């Protein structure tokens, strides 16, 4: 028997399978099923369908593949008090905090730019010709006859004393042209080893060939008065 009551009953059958039937609906359905074999058969069909769908579409928790761990953004921890108006009243102004540093950086930058723009001549090597004519800035004239110690000038044992300017190039020229060949001078004072044999060429000049005086290279003292004028000016300009 499949009349309109059975059509209404079909909906109750499905809900009954789902276990969602209200008590009054359950009573109504049971009353109908008692006299309708077709609906009892249909009820079995829906129970089978429910079980099959549960098996086909159901998922056990252990079947779910692991998902994650997912990277989580760092939570923002801003307290409501900091968002309130006037919350920054007691805090130092960041601009004022770094203002001295910014001022110092600006001054350094200005000094650097000024040094680049203003020509000072610093950094240019002095030419050798001018060294013999001019006295270095800040170097006072020495009294005539002063003996300058080579160790003093090289090692700077007297830092406050005026330092003569020695140009290696000029020394080289003087040594070749005007200075008498070095006599036996040990490499180190107190060195017992025999002095190094001088090479035969160029032929050594006799000591008497030196224009004036005697300059003993390697000794600690140089007699400026006994030095040739040109040599003295080249080696010790301004003396």
């Amino acid at each position, binding site marked *: 028997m499949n009349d309109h009551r059975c059509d209404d009953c079909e909906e109750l059958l499905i809900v009954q399978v789902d276990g969602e039937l209200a008590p009054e609906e359950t009573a109504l359905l049971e009353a109908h099923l008692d006299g309708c074999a077709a609906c009892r058969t249909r009820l079995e069909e829906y129970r089978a369908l429910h079980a099959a769908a549960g*098996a086909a579409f*159901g998922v056990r928790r252990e079947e779910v593949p692991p998902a994650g761990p997912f990277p989580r953004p760092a939570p923002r921890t801003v307290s409501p008090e900091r968002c309130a108006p006037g919350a920054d009243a007691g805090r130092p102004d960041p601009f004022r905090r770094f203002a001295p540093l910014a001022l110092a950086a600006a001054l350094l930058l200005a000094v650097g730019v000024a040094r680049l723009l203003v020509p000072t001549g610093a950094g240019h090597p002095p030419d050798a010709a001018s060294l013999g004519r001019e006295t270095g800035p800040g170097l006072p004239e020495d009294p005539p006859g002063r003996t300058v110690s080579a160790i003093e000038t090289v090692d700077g044992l007297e830092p406050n004393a005026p330092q003569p300017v020695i140009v290696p190039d000029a020394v080289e020229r003087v040594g070749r042209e005007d200075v008498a060949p070095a006599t036996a001078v040990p490499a180190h004072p107190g060195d017992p080893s025999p002095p190094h044999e001088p090479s035969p060429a160029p032929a050594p000049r006799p000591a008497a060939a030196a224009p004036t005086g005697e300059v003993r290279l390697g000794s600690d003292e140089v007699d400026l008065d006994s030095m040739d004028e040109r040599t003295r000016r080249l080696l010790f300009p301004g003396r």
Partner: protein
Amino acid sequence: MTTEEIVERYGRYVLALCRQQLRNDPPETHEEICQEAWINIHRGLPGFDARAKISTWLYTVTRNTVYAFLDRRRKREAAERAFAAPESTPPRSDEHLALRLALEKIPEEEQKILLMKYSMELSYEEIARETGLTRDQVRHRLIDARKRMRIHLGTRDGRMP
């Protein structure tokens, strides 16, 4: 709601969606695409509009993940077919596949509710909360879904496939 909480609550639903839409594939593929769907869900969670139902959004993201996978596979297989001999694989014909085919033929909204009910074992009231429908609307959609599936399965004579 964090991704971990969504996985805990909807993990079975997302896997059921993958199984349904990839019904001819092995379980390994279901799990692989399910994990890919969760990555997409995690990435898209910051942009999720909280006014929408999360179950609907999960359904959309999962479906798009499956479609992207099917598209990739179709292109890869087309490239492989160009160099390999054709291979015929008989279609699976078990009870689960018949049910999935029947589910595929009913309206999409009924599919979602039916999968939600069976995968997450939710009551009418819980499905109503998840979907935003009323309890009576859920009840009627589930009734209609079963009626349609029964017709598609051909169980008028009382036999299940």
